[in-house]
């Protein structure tokens, strides 16, 4: 459970969220994205295909990251949300803030 990062040949940083994104581990994800930004990365994909649940702290961390990435003219997309996670984003209207793709492949094709 945790986060792993891969980079595709086009330079998109893919952050895989395994398990949950909650108050106890959100800082780790924020640090991973910030480190990428510091290295010059500008395209980020959050892969939720192995994510069990996200709480409001995790949603807040994603909002913060989205702002940080946009500030440097970067792009942050989400993909692989299950039905429950998708409903969570719709309930909170965060689906208006993040481009959300059904699969990682779909998202990578959108960058």
């Amino acid at each position: 459970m945790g986060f792993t990062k891969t980079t595709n040949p086009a330079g998109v940083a893919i952050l895989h969220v395994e398990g949950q994104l909650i108050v106890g581990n959100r800082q780790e994800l924020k640090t991973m994205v910030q480190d990428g930004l510091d290295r010059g990365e500008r395209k980020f994909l959050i892969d939720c295909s192995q994510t069990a649940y996200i709480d409001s702290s995790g949603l807040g961390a994603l909002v913060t990251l989205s702002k940080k990435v946009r500030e440097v003219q970067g792009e942050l997309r989400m993909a692989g949300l299950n039905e429950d996670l998708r409903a969570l984003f719709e309930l909170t209207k965060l689906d208006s803030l993040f481009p959300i793709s059904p699969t990682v492949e779909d998202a990578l094709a959108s960058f």
Partner: protein
Amino acid sequence: MQPHAAPLRLTVRRSRSSVGSAVAVSLTVPADVRFVEEAVELMARHCLSGLAPGQRIGFRVRVLLAEALTNSILFGADGNPARTVRLAAELTDHAIRLQVTDDGPGFDPEVIPDPTAPGGVSKSIGRGLFLIRSLADQVEFNEQGNTIWMTLQRS
């Protein structure tokens, strides 16, 4: 990262009456957010065990527990690991009733702004109680505002 402390211990009581069976589960958690993941899993596993709940109720139970526990740790107990937060659940044939109590002064749930209102969506904070109200079938507070009950119907 797991906190270095004694493992969390769950207390389980079972009862049976003419109206059906019931299980009461409780857990005391140090007020440290590093315990949230483990505490939620322990409670959720017992709330959902043997009852073949669908994925949706499992998701709701976990998010509700995580939200209420985090709120109590951060705002009720000021994130002070010397203080504790108590989780409890009453499990009947028809419902799961979750309870979270802290030793803080409590808060007024009516003054929390709607995070989906204009300007709220782009904020990083303020979604916890909204999620609780959206995902639970019934939400109640005690008068002081330091205990919350969240009920989910099984069907």
